[in-house]
């Protein structure tokens, strides 16, 4: 079983960008290869979590916006 060949296709499989025939071949391989099926599961988990990050900004520690605003004001004379 040529896992290396199928491994290269897993991101496209995950994104749904494979043609029907290739998709079917990958599906067949995944049905009989536990390691590749595990990798696909992990990639899919990463992609799904990344989508959540798009609207999620609370997982980041932010600097003080007031300090950056003051630096910005001084450098560009944005003074009221």
């Amino acid at each position: 079983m040529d896992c290396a060949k199928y491994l290269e296709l897993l991101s496209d499989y995950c994104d749904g960008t494979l043609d029907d025939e290739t998709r079917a071949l990958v599906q067949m391989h995944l049905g009989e290869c536990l390691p590749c099926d595990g990798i696909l599961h992990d990639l899919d988990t990463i992609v799904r979590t990344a989508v959540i990050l798009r609207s999620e900004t609370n997982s980041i520690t932010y600097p003080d916006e007031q300090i950056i605003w003051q630096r910005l004001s001084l450098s560009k004379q944005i003074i009221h």
Partner: protein
Amino acid sequence: MTTAEVETQPPSDVELARASAAGDTNAFEQLYRRHFRRVYALCFRMLGNPTEAEDLTQDVFTHLFNKIGSFRGESAFTTWLHRLTVNQVLMYFRRRSARPEFTTEEGETPVQIVRGTENPNKMPIIDRIALERAITQLPPGYRTVFVLHDVEGHDHDEIAHILGVSEGTSKSQLHKARLKLRQILRQQTA
């Protein structure tokens, strides 16, 4: 909607941008406060370093201050600012001569599956903070493409255009980035 409700509506981004372009610094400050976190988050995710992200955020808003008159309202302000931010980060990569390599990452070991050695245990649900931390550990080229595609939602055609690479390169970098993230996350949870 009542007249009172209409009167208390906060100004839109477009209105604030127009006022800023006309020299209203209060309007510009409102835009800054409204979009600061979004801009910082994008800089941080693309750079993977809080100090650099802070400096770049300042650069982005400086650039925005100078260019805001060129915003015509043809796209949403957030889309326009997003593109402006990505461009500033890419210019920064070029300036510091550490432009992400969009070929094979030197020193990166290709992921190979040797039957019987791959841990069949599937990763559990990933903590968002763990993923955020893992992204910062990616090599710059991988990180840029992953953030643009999987986090920010650009397609490969757009990424190829933004980065000046082929779509194939963008796809290949994304795949390697995901595999590398998987490796990092598995090490974290081992």
